[in-house]
């Protein structure tokens, strides 16, 4: 430490340092053209690079890597699989492709496909996909489409159901999971007390994502058909929003710690794992963390409680070929092989996930445990979110902020929802 150089500086040195600090601000904040590309890019013939979230490509033995090797070996192709944290994936893909580099193939959340498509970052696969399109759930195909063209092939499908703790229900003397909103509220109240709570919610984007089923169950809609106007603040929407927020604000059946669920699904699942919460709504991606975190937990899976109708939200991933790909035919060969009827084992055995194929009901998923069966049954009826460019903005910014301002008691539910609708319509007008 005594060797520290003299830190005194002249005026000029200081001014230059200032420039450095300020320039870094621009670099850090803007990130324009920051793409460095990844792996081999799309350059060399016979080599393809695939990017996916760490959920698919987290470790060296990931099933997707094995599948890529198997196919590559047969075709004389090298397929490099690279994984990125789910929260960063869309941003990574976007900046890499905008910078002229990036992968040939992406496995991305369906809700990000329209934004990639609008940015002309994915290849239109409508014609290539036509022959096989009927083998996939219509909702997943719709979610992977933009303006009547298909930009990605549905890979896995997920939807949201209700998980309930059998032991806590038994202790409270409740026989079965709630089938309606009223039953949900009544059960949640029964199950709240003694440091435990009946139901779980999320903050920020987790809160907005989990709101859509409530909206639909009450007969509401997110946007109009043209995708130009927000409709979620119509009377049915407001009623659903009030009920949803009321679980916390009015009835207190939600652990107050849900306000901190902003970073990961693991935070959301935690209280259910530790039996501090008796019920939560989540997709099949929640099952593996529960099996890992508390293998002995006795819980059941049921469809979400019904409002005026039943509804759940569709999620999952789709596989697209990027504009950086120089060998679209080779990439398509791999994509169509990976999503074909013979390869459902990759998702089923490697990840306990459900392929977005209509034949999953034919017993090919029998190998998955009972908890998965409800999700398989719901796969055909789950509703996709609107395929609009501004979706990420609407769900993870506009609605996320609105939800936060409600649960932090900064705004009334009505005011927050109306303001969010105005902001969402404005976001849609930007295209």
């Amino acid at each position, binding site marked *: *430490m*005594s060797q*520290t*150089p*003299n*830190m*005194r*500086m*002249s*005026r*000029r*040195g*200081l*001014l*230059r*340092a*200032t*420039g*450095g*600090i*300020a*320039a*870094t*601000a*621009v*670099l*850090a*904040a*803007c*990130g*324009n*053209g920051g793409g460095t590309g990844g792996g081999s890019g799309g350059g060399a013939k016979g080599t393809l690079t695939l990017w996916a979230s760490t959920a698919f490509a987290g470790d060296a033995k990931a099933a997707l890597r094995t599948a890529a090797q198997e196919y590559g070996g047969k075709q004389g192709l090298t397929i490099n699989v690279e994984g990125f944290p789910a929260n960063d994936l869309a941003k990574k893909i*976007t900046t890499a492709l905008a910078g002229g580099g990036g992968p040939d193939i992406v496995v991305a959340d369906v809700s990000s496909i329209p*934004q990639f498509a*609008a*940015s002309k970052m994915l290849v239109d696969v409508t014609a290539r996909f036509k022959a096989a399109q009927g083998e996939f759930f219509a909702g997943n195909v719709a979610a992977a489409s933009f303006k009547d063209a298909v930009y990605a092939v549905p890979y896995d499908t997920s939807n949201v159901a209700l998980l309930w703790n059998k032991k806590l229900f038994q202790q409270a003397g409740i026989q079965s999971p709630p089938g309606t909103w009223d039953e949900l509220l009544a059960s949640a109240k029964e199950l709240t007390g003694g440091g435990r709570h009946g139901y779980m919610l999320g*903050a*920020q984007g987790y809160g907005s994502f989990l709101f859509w089923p409530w909206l639909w169950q009450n007969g509401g809609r997110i946007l109009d058909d043209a995708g130009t106007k927000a409709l979620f603040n119509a009377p049915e929407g407001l009623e659903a929003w009030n009920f949803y927020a009321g679980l916390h604000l009015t009835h207190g059946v939600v652990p*107050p*710690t849900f*306000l*901190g669920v*902003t*970073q990961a699904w693991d935070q959301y699942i*935690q*209280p259910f794992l530790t039996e*501090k919460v008796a019920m939560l709504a989540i997709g099949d991606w929640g099952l593996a963390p529960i099996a890992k975190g508390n293998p002995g937990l006795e819980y059941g899976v049921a469809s979400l409680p019904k409002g005026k109708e039943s509804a759940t939200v569709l999620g999952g991933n789709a596989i697209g070929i990027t504009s950086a790909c120089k060998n679209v035919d080779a990439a398509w060969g791999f994509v169509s092989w990976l999503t074909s009827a013979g390869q459902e084992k990759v998702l089923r055995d490697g990840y306990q996930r459900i392929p977005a194929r209509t034949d999953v009901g034919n017993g090919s998923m029998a190998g998955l445990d009972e908890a998965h069966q409800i999700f398989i049954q719901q796969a055909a009826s789950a509703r996709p979110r609107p395929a609009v460019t*501004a979706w*990420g*903005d609407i769900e*993870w*910014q506009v609605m996320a*902020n609105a939800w*936060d*301002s409600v649960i*932090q008691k*900064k705004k009334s539910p009505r005011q927050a929802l109306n303001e969010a609708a105005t902001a969402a319509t404005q*976001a849609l007008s*930007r*295209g």
Partner: protein
Amino acid sequence: MATTHLKESAAAPASRVASAPRRPRGGRRPWAYLAPAVLLLGGVLGYPVLDGLWTSFNHSILTQPGADRFTGLSNYAAVLTDPVLLTAAWHTVLWGVANLVLQLVLGFALAMLMHQKLAGRAFFRSVVIIPWIVPSVVVALVWRFLLDPTSGPLNQLLLNLGLIDQSPQWLADESTAMPVLILLSTWKWTPLVAVILLAGLQTIPKELHEAAMLDGAGAPQRLRYVIIPGIRTSIALAGLLTVGYSVNNFNGIWMFTRGGPAGATETLTTLAYQYAFTQFDFGRAAAVAMILFAFLFLLSTVYFYLVEGRKR
């Protein structure tokens, strides 16, 4: 970032020589010597700034490829009328000032301690620097665990000591999120300030202390008339770096709260990030970044003249 500043500080003695009373001889030769450095700095610092400036005057939305066009000040008009900008700017000022004051005061105290002849001084100096060298991702993971409302050790400790009877949600409560993040940022960056100030303290000749003591100056007087004037340049540098680092410290906010809860920790950097990566509007993101740039530039120029100007 750090390397840039280290390079700057290493280059400083050279420019001190140049600004010494001795008149430079003139001619073109000095420019030839300077050219490589100027070109490098121009490329590494100048180009991104100019590119950012240009982007901020353009309609540049990633999801509208081919629609880029010059739109003058319309991005600025859009972001300046965004009510979030004012809040974010206020949070940025609060964040910068609080970090500056806390880090300078604590950093000075630490530097004074490390300057004493204590047993185990080398060990102490190494330990103090640890928060600064830990990567911010690790800092975020560790502190998020420590601060977890239900399973975090901090709340357990406070509960067991009877200091609280309900677990505060440090990062999810509007009233505590910003103060907690400021403390965490102070925890992480104070060591740097302490090291800079320590280096300054070591340049004060012993004779000055001895002379002051002979003149009957007590500790407060020595602090006021010997120590602080002696390390004024170090304080200026540390202050400048602190403001610059803090205001640009996106990780220290994003990895804890993403600007939440309900916008309570939204600053200009998180706002620019949201424009760029949730709306993919690089024009508006660049406009926010340029506003931040102007603000920092102005601040550091004023600060520099206040501290450095008094010398003359």
